[in-house]
């Protein structure tokens, strides 16, 4: 990239790096409906970036654009200083972007362990024949992946449910397993779609702690959608505010809190549209 990128230092003293993901003038339409209207923002390395906004503002669609599931009609996605060509979602995952889903998307027919192991798929290089014989490279890879996964399991404190079928778990634990699956992929950028939706206060505290720890220990960049304003203001370094598919605010939590458009959107001042 031509322009020089510089990071900044957060309030709590963390060094934030260069721009990792840059979304430029993204517009996404479904038929005649514009879900996202000409939105640009960036996510910097090491940052916790929040996307907030009322229901139907286009936040989840934004994440889907980032993970390649929706292809925007206009605009560009730049990742690590390169313009991203049209890609399939699984290729995005291989570039190091992992995510969780608003409505938990675990593989219900598999155990917790197997679910998290699917996060390691991008690190499996052995071919079908090797796996069929289950010797040599295939077995070594399997064991190494298992070790990595066990580390994630320890980190998220879900050792006890390792072999439980996912379908039997309560909601809060499912959310945690989903996070584990995303972490097992050792992503550079982690997208969290409402990681705390439907949780009680204690569960929210746990989840907040995990998010901060992930960012702190592994240096993972995180973009999250969340409705709980308290959580957002506490966790995030910078916040994007969306409303009706448009960006109405962008900045540190304090800046956003004092932004008149944002206050209007949340307090329900009449729109001109």
């Amino acid at each position, binding site marked *: 990239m031509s322009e020089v990128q510089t990071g900044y230092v957060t309030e709590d003293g963390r060094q934030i790096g260069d721009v990792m993901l840059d979304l430029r003038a993204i517009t996404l339409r479904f038929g005649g409906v514009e879900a996202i209207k000409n939105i640009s923002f960036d996510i910097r390395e090491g940052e916790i970036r929040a996307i907030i906004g009322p229901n139907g503002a286009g936040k989840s669609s934004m994440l889907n654009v980032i993970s390649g599931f929706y292809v925007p009609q206009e605009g560009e996605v730049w990742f690590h200083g390169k313009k991203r060509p049209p890609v399939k979602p699984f290729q995005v*995952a291989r570039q190091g972007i992992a995510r969780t889903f608003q409505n938990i998307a675990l593989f219900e027919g598999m155990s917790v362990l197997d679910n998290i192991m699917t996060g390691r798929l991008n690190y499996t290089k052995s071919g079908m024949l090797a796996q069929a014989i289950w010797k040599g490279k295939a077995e070594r890879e399997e064991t190494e992946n298992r070790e990595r996964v066990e580390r994630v399991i320890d980190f998220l404190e879900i050792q006890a449910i390792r072999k439980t079928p996912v379908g039997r778990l309560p909601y809060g634990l499912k959310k945690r397993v989903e996070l584990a699956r995303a972490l097992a992929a050792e992503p550079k950028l982690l997208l969290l779609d409402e990681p705390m939706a439907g949780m009680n206060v204690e569960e929210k505290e746990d989840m907040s702690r995990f998010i901060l720890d992930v960012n702190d220990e592994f240096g993972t960049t995180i973009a999250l959608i969340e409705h709980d304003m308290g959580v957002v203001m506490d966790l995030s370094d910078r916040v994007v505010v969306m409303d009706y598919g448009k960006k109405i605010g962008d900045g540190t939590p304090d800046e956003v809190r004092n932004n008149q458009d944002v206050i209007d959107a949340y307090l329900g001042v009449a729109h001109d549209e």
Partner: protein
Amino acid sequence: MLYREAGDYKTSYEADSQTFPIAFDRYRYWFVLAVAFLVLPFLVNDYVVNALLLPFLIYSIAAIGLNILTGYTGQVSLGTGGFMAVGAYACYKLMTAFPDVNILIHVLLAGGITAIVGTLFGLPSLRIKGFYLAVATLAAQFFLVWLFNKVAWFYNYSASGQISAPERFVFGVAVTGPNTPAWASYLVCLVFVTFCALIARNLTRGALGRQWMAIRDMDIAAEIIGVNPLKAKLTAFAVSSFFVGISGALFFAVYLGAVEVGEAFGINKSFLVLFMIIIGGLGSIFGAFAGAAFLVTLPVFLKLIGVDLLGWPTDLVAHLQLVVVGLLIMFFLVKEPHGLAQLWRVAKEKLRLWPFPH
């Protein structure tokens, strides 16, 4: 405490992901193998082999194959009969074109050819899902049967339109043709069953199996976390068809000896194998065996009761069999969608706690 896993500690991840993590299961598995290979060949007679063992073993391979596609990857196929026909005809063409090559290699190659055909017919699965795909696989079923019926090259221009297996030997013993001893055909099928089951087990417990199951459980999420749906689905079609092809080849060469395609590999064969995995258990290798055993013995059993014991006419028993099979399918889908395999797991859970269930 007949069945226990307590005290069976694992000290490595290899040990934890082995085929039978519980020691008791492991011993039983070796015991079954030993009996099957070392004891049964000396005990069996023609009737037992032809009425029970051969169909059981051969259908088990087909059921494992279909289970990989349907049970593990979630792609319902109604084309199993057609793919078995590919295996049978590939085997026949190979046997007659290269008479000096070992029949076992022909059977494997027939599986390989079927895998290619299966992958070809699997291509639409990338765009078509659910029962749309199930109906699309009917295209494979009907087209393939028609092809083998109409193109004389496939049956070497024989007047009857049938194919019949020439005599072939393994270690000097006939394994195909009319002079085959019962134990020899049994052993050939057993070798293939063991081979297929091991491969299937290895694939399903590893990375590829997880990709398949991820596609089955939630294909969109699977793709977003990095599963290439093209690769996952096509490998499932390939591996599945490989097994189905082997079973078709054995069904023709070792079991029947001569087949007419519409009769041996019609749409009813597709349903039969599908029923086996529903009754046995979707997504379970053991289930494939259980389902095959069940649906192979059921007609024999019904005939024994109906015809031999009660003296009913055979067609009446055949109709009754339809009713029973239909009822069983509905029963299992309502009560136990995971089939006999799940009943077995529940029984093991109970045994583990017995005699102190609380």
